[in-house]
């Protein structure tokens, strides 16, 4: 177990010129010892590159990695004593399930009695006890992935366990079960776990801290709650949540916020008002969950034209457009209760946008 300090960037090109040449832009981050982290981001955002830099499969082109203050930038995965589970199951075909699980221990010369004990323990944890003597090659994909997972968990003295979208091939029911297992393991042994995924539910339920990445850049680090309530970047607002945050183009004019020609005077802290005043144009972000229907004569409500209202079972998803005098109409989604049942396309609704959950973005970055 170790604290991992990153201060690195990586480019697959030999001579990177612009930001586009980097798979991983300069990043400084510390994974605390015993923490459960998730790296969340869309495909191709550099999550796996970062993970491989940590495990030592890839040497970052710039910068350093330190485990507990010891520089390991040039060290192999063996020397770093890292466990890593890959997206697709890797099993050793000629071995039995038990031999597969024992492989990482045997390679390190662990005593047979201890190997037996650890393998038995891990097999029990993953429900593999019954098939320990079976050949691994004949098993189904999810069983194979459990073996891969087991090989990652079998060593107790590892610096960290890295998971690279390990549950992609597992069916939803088992996925949920295994995720809970991983959480239990984390609570029991306080290992440093780093979990790569593009699934926000997976990241938010698994990790204490989520590192959201976009195009090789870490855009925000925080708890599930922070990512939901105060997205530091419009990308995070959009990416986290289903559907993502609504963004409305706004202007600061004469001490008030102007959206689509109407003026609003929400309560704003003084520094925020100054920042918005200095920026001129900015974006107002509000989650679909925090939009409410308002009375038609409410001066603080935003008029919008209903496109459709869908019953999603436990809530109504209302899609509406806000007509701007100049620009294109902005799409707004709201998660509403049964009060939305009567809404018909074409109808005008009044939405209350400003409340304590509303966020303000200048140049895509959160200011208030």
């Amino acid at each position, binding site marked *: 177990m170790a604290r991992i300090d990153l201060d690195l960037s990586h480019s697959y090109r030999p001579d990177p010129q612009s930001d586009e040449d980097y798979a991983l832009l300069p990043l400084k981050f510390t994974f605390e010892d015993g923490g459960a982290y998730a790296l969340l981001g869309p495909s191709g955002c550099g999550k796996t590159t970062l993970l491989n830099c940590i495990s030592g499969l890839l040497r970052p082109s710039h910068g350093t990695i330190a485990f507990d203050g010891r520089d390991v930038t040039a060290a192999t995965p*063996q020397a770093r004593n890292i*466990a890593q589970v890959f997206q697709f199951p890797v099993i050793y075909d000629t071995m039995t399930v038990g031999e597969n699980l024992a492989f990482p221990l045997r390679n390190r010369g662990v005593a047979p009695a201890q190997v037996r004990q650890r393998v038995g323990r891990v097999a029990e944890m993953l429900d593999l006890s019954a098939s320990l003597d079976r050949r691994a090659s004949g098993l189904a994909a999810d069983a194979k992935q459990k073996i891969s997972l087991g090989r990652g968990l079998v060593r107790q003295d590892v610096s960290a366990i890295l998971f690279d979208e390990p549950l992609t091939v597992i069916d939803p029911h088992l996925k949920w079960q295994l995720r809970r297992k991983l959480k239990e393991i984390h609570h029991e042994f306080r290992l440093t776990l780093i979990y790569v995924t593009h699934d926000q539910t997976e990241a938010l339920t698994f990790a204490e801290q989520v590192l959201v990445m976009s195009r090789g850049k870490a855009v925000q680090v925080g708890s599930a709650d922070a990512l939901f309530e105060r997205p530091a970047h419009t990308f995070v607002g959009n990416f986290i949540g289903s559907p993502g945050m609504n963004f409305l183009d706004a202007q600061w004019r004469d001490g008030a916020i102007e959206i689509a020609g109407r003026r609003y005077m929400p309560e704003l802290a003084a520094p925020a008002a100054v920042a918005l005043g200095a920026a001129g144009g900015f974006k107002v972000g509000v989650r679909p969950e925090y939009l409410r229907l308002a009375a038609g004569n409410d001066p603080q409500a935003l008029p919008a034209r209903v496109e459709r209202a869908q019953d999603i079972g436990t809530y109504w998803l209302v899609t509406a457009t806000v007509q701007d005098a100049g620009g294109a109409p902005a799409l707004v989604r709201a998660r509403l209760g049964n009060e939305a049942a009567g809404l018909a396309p074409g109808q005008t609704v009044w939405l209350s946008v400003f409340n304590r959950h509303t966020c303000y973005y200048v140049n895509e970055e959160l200011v208030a």
Partner: protein
Amino acid sequence: MSTLKPVNQKAWLLVIPVVLCVAFSAILPLMTIVNYSVQDIISPERRVFVGTEWFRTVLRDGELHDALLRQLGFSLAVLAVEIPLGILLALSMPAKGWKASAVLVVIALSLLIPWNVVGTIWQIFGRTDIGLLGAALAGLGFDYNYTGSAVDAWVTVLVMDVWHWTPLVALLCYAGLRAIPDAYYQAAQIDGASRLAVFRYIQLPKLRGVLMIAVLLRFMDSFMIYTEPFVLTGGGPGNATTFLSQYLTQKAVGQFDLGPAAAFSIVYFLIILLMCFVLYNWMQRAGTAGSAGSEDMPHA
């Protein structure tokens, strides 16, 4: 009366071209051999049915037994040298870049040379007066003479075959190695596997398919070897390098014993068929039963 849909039998017509081709290329020539093997044909007009007499003659032929043993020894030696050497070559070849292309071309060169030319090359190569190999060995003080010494001749034929055909094994293995996903090597690195363990538990199992093809091809080919030793040694000195097909040719063309030669051809054919069947089954099992339930299981 049947409730089943009537089966359309017209599809059989589509098989006819293949049947005809195979008939003319394989079955009819084979039947000629069968025809010769059970008759004593003195002239086109005079023929006597002799039953199994030629077969009995052939099976009691001591020279043939020697040739068969020699042949088996040679084929096994070919496999024992070429398969490991081919794997080693494939493992040491570069995986990508211009070097990979260059190595592939260079290594495939010997496969493009016709058999009789290979024989001629080595005949000259091994000569102690003008051949590079022969002269070098003689210069180093070895008493090397592939036309005089049975051991030298046998070894020279083996080395020639290794030179000619190991690249085939190497190319097959190379293709097999390239097909292994990177994740396996990464996982092995994470699991702390040694180079040997990576070979034993990842590369070798993944090469099973191509190795089976390589073993079968090299066995069949070496078991039927004719041209190269014929050009190089002519089967000599004595009978040292007279392999089965050479012996067969001597019987059929040299002595014109068409009956025994035909009987022997059939026996030869059956031996190859049997050996391939045995090899194939053995390798299939070796790959799938493998190390299951081996003695050092990690758990009780």
